[in-house]
Structure formats: C-alpha cells, structure tokens
C-alpha cells in the first residue's frame, strides 16, 4: 500500500491534465523505444476523440501513429500479432462500450496466448479505452465495464484517476510484457469541452516514471469508514469525504488504480482499521467490483466489519440518456455521502 497518489507540490510545480499526462508518457516511451506504435480510430489528425493522442501524429508521423478503418477485430488482432513479433503496440478502442465487436481478439487471443504457449510467446500490448458517463451519451457510450475485463484472465487492468497516475501507469503499462487494458474515464481527462473535476489538472513530473501496476493508493486517511473506489469516483469520494469530515465522519479513501492485479492487502489493512466499508463503483453493481471487494473482506474475516458492507454502484440497468435519470444512478458525491452516513448510522 502506498500512501500517495501524487508527489507533493514542492517536487513538481508543473501541472498537466490527465490527457496531456498520458500523451507525454506515450511520447517519452516512443522516443526511447522505436518498436512502440499507436493505432486506433481518429488517433492521428484528430488526436483521439478524448485527446489521448494529441500531437503524436505531428511528432512521430503516420508510420507510427496510424488511423485505422472502423474494424476493431482486425486492428486488435493486428496489435496482438505485432506484439508477438516483438513490437509494442498501443491500441485505442475509442469507447469501451464497443468491446463487443472485437472481444474475441481481446480475451481469447491477446489475453490467452502467453499461457497457451507455455510462456513462450509474449504479448506486450497496451489497449487504452475511454470509459464512463455523466454527459448524456446514452446506453451504448457511457459504460465502465471494467468488471468484465477484470473477470477474464490474462490481462492486467489499470484505471488511473489523476494526471500523475495516468502518466506513471501508462509508462508501466507500456513497459509491461503483458497485455494491459488502460481505462481512462472521460471525466478525469481534463477536456476543455466537458465538465471536469478540478483534480483532472495536477502536478506531473517531466521525467518518465513508473507507477507500479497492482498497488492501490490511500488518497485520504481516515478512522471511521473505508471508501474503496477508482477512476472518476475517487474524486466524488474525496468531495464526499470533505463534506462528511465537517459532519464528524472521518473517511479513508482508497483509489484502487488497478483491478488486475488487485491490491487486496490495501483494502484489508484499511478495513481492519476502520471496521466499515463502502465500495463505490460506476460500473454495474452485480457480479462486479463491488462484490469482489466485499468478498475480499468476507473471506478474510467478516468480524473485521462493525457494520454491513455498503455498495454504491451503477444499478443493473442500461444507462439512461436523460440527465435526470442518469444522475439518479451515477455515484455522485451526494449519493456517496448519503451512503456513508447510512453505514455509520
């Protein structure tokens, strides 16, 4: 467990958005390693619909930054094949919601070849993809779905919540010899055209650095209640924690940062201290992350819990378009605070 998400302000004064931090990571790694290339839809001249590749085409040219046809199965497979032959592809799936048109290449191939080959073949692909809702993009463009990827073996799954982690996790993902799914929430990117959490702009060291994959961060320490969450919900949880603090409830907030490997120790250590657990997730509730985290405690020692575990997640319904409805199901700061108060009651 690492008690820091980002370095202290004194270490680096430079601030970047999450999107720019990602791009910087890719760019620095591409400078270092000519076998890296980037591929996907609208990642060239457009710079990525969510700015995950802005400026890379200008810097590296069309031989290394390649727009693809809308043929996700073909280009996911292309990434796998190229990785098998020693290259290090970064491939973007524009929205994670589109996984259904190419999932076979991801989970039956990219993820399994290393094992099926008895370790003789390595598949170092970074699959980056945008997740999440909150801007009325409807049932096919607002999902998180990390529960699906974390359920299926052979892929690491990382989910940064802030610029510092975004850069460090991207560098770790690129250097990792395994397929790594890198899921960035649109709401943490710091896009000029979308409402953003203030923390989507944050200090980022200029030099390349790694954030280890599989280590959660305690982003706020507290005595009364452990809130386990990730991605944009970290910010909502921190906002809720601020409010709760003024009401005398002292929350510890854990940013998982990675689902595979999952930092079970970090969860257990915190719950051992607080005795109370609220899991917050923007992915669907059942058969997903909230269940897994609850199980981590229940299978270790249910007596750690002074109160029942609470889960606040996207309910098991397709994500509605209308803002009234969408905000009735998103895990907002208000709903987190309310859930926390219930756990403490």
């Amino acid at each position, binding site marked *: 467990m690492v008690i820091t998400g980002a370095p202290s302000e004194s270490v680096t004064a430079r601030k970047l958005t999450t999107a720019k931090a990602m791009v910087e990571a890719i760019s620095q790694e591409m400078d270092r390693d000519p076998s890296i290339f980037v591929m996907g839809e609208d990642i060239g001249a*457009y710079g990525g619909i969510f700015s995950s590749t802005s400026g890379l085409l200008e810097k590296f040219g069309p031989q290394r930054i390649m727009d693809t*046809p809308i043929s996700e199965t073909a280009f996911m497979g292309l990434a796998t094949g190229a990785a098998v032959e020693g290259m290090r592809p970064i491939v973007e799936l524009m929205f994670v919601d589109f996984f259904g048109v190419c999932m076979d290449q991801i989970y039956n191939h990219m993820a399994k070849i290393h094992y099926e080959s008895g370790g003789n073949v390595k598949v170092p692909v970074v699959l980056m993809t945008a997740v999440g809702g909150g801007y*009325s993009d*409807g049932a096919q463009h607002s999902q998180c779905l990390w529960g699906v990827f974390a359920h299926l073996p052979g892929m690491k799954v990382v989910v940064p919540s802030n610029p510092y982690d975004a850069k460090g996790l991207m560098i770790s993902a690129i250097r990792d010899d395994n397929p790594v799914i890198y899921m960035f929430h649109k709401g943490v990117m710091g896009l000029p055209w979308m409402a953003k959490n203030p923390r989507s702009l944050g200090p980022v060291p200029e030099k390349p650095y790694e954030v280890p994959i599989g280590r959660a961060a305690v982003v706020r320490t507290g005595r009364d209640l452990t809130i386990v969450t990730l991605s944009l919900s970290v910010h909502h949880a921190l906002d809720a924690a601020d409010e709760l603090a003024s009401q005398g409830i002292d929350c510890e907030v854990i940013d998982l940062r990675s689902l595979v490997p999952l930092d079970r120790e970090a969860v257990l250590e915190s719950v051992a201290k607080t005795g109370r657990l609220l899991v917050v997730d923007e992915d669907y509730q059942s058969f997903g992350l909230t269940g897994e985290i609850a199980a981590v405690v229940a299978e270790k020692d249910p007596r750690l819990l002074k109160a029942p575990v609470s889960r606040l997640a996207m309910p098991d319904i397709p994500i*509605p378009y209308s803002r009234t409805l969408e905000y*009735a199901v998103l895990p907002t700061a208000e709903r987190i605070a309310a859930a926390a108060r219930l756990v403490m009651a």
Partner: protein
Amino acid sequence: MDNETRLGLYKTMVLSRSFEEAILRDYHADKKPVWDIGAGLIPGEMHLSSGQEPVAAGMCAHLTSNDAITATHRPHHFAIAHGMDLRLLAAEIFGRETGLGKGRGGHMHLFDPSIHFSCSGIIAEGYPPALGIAFAFQRQGKDSVVVAVTGEGAANQGAFHESLNLAALWKLPVVFVIEDNDWAISVPRDASTSIRSNAVRATSYGIRGTRIQDNSVEGVWDAAKTAVERARAGEGPSLIEVHTVRLWGHFEGDAQAYRSDLDSLIDPIPAYANQLESDGVLSREMIGSISQEAKMRVEDAIEFAKSSPLPSATEVDRYVFA
C-alpha cells in the same frame, strides 16, 4: 418522374433540414460561455445529417409505414423521411418522458414501432437486426421491406459482411444503403477502404450493387425503386451506395481541423430547389412557403418537447425488464 414526386422529395428534405437547424440552435443555445457537452437542454453527442437528406428522401419515398428502417448514430433524416412523429422525436432528443423512449434512449436510440424504425450508435450493428425484421416480414407473409443504413466507414466492419452474406443466402427483403460522406469522423474514405466503390462489394454476395455518384435525390429515388421492388417481389437484397456530403461536423463541437474539403461542399437542398425551379416545378414563393410550413411543424415539435415533463428519477429502473 412526376412533379408531385419531385415536390415530395424536396419537401421531405426541407423538413429534415429545418428540424436539424432547430436542433442545432437549441443544442448550442445553452452550452455557453464554456461549452460543455453534458450541459444544456440537449446534452450528449449530436450527429446531424444535414447534406445527406437526398439519401433518406429518395429511399423512403418508396416505403410505407409497414416497411422498416434500421438507421445509424446519424438517424434524423431517415426518421423524418420515414414519417416519424416530430413531436415524439424532439421530445426524445430533449430527454422527456413524452419522447419515443421516454427519455431513456436519446438521439442515437430511437425506436418507433409504429413505423418499424430503429437505430443504433454502434457502427454497422444496425445491419444484423435488419435481417431479423426482414425475416419476420418474410415469414409473416408480408411484402414489407427493410432499409438498412450505414456509413462508408461502417462498410469495413465485420457485421457488414456477415449481414450481406446472410441476407443474400436467405433472400431476405433488405435494401442495404451506404451513405458515403467521404469521412468517418476524421478518417477519409481512402484511409479506411481498400477500393473506390462499395457497390463492388455486392459481387461478393451475388447481389446487385449500385453507386450514386452525385448525391442526387432523384438518382437515389431511381435506384431505390428497383431495389425496393425487387425486395418486395422476393428477389432478395440489394446494395446502394450514395456519394453524399456531411455539411457539418461529425458531431456538434467537432472543429473539423482535419478537413480540407470544406470549401467545395455542395448543399443538395438549394441545388435541388434550383433544378426544380428551372424545371418549372417550384417557384420562389413555393420555396418560401414550404420552408415556412416545415419550420412551423418543427417549432411545434420543439415546443412540445420543451414543455413536456422530464422523466421521474424514481422511475429510472422501469423498463429494464418487460
């Protein structure tokens, strides 16, 4: 082609354009001063079809409400040409309880059983359900047909291939329509497609393929006539590609910095108006009154939408299961 038909095509296109101009206005109206995609009366992605009206108008002229459409993320022109109630359409776009999907769907997910209309935001994935609609029509002994729409970018998606093969194999009454607007977001056609004309791809399935080169509504109408008649007669599917034009951004907010063709775009509606005028089918006054009438219908629909109630948050879990 008779004057009434030509006039009809023109009116359909104007209605569609009027509707989108109103949506465009209201979409941007309350996103300022800091433009935020999630804010305003119409939040979310907004893909407008302006410039592509000839495709929808030409195709739908041969259809009745017993025929079906499966459209794309850019569905308004087909919805309107196929006769969707503008009020229900607008209300859905405004996320209201009175909308087609009671605010649950949004502009990429319009379902109107009364005219067998549906659409999807996933590229090319409207084709497969079209097969099933056609299959049902066939088994139910109807002579209805399905018009299944995608863009030229979508024609490189696996679903395209599987759907054309199966439709040809089972002789399903489907007309596959490709709207080639030269762009898939920022990716030009020649960076996505290994050949010039998707009509050629019909050969791979032993069906007829036609390409309309000039965004002409009458060209579409002609090709559609043959294709729809064949489908109704049980002669199976056809493919029609239309070289059309995306007048605006891929979605609203798209700065289109990648685009060098912006100066050479031809708006098909004034062009058609000129043609009809010089053919003596339309007069200046008629142009004005058609536009006027369209605007009235559109504003009525927008008004209906705006004055309709929002869905109730407590009912968010209704309609998950039937």
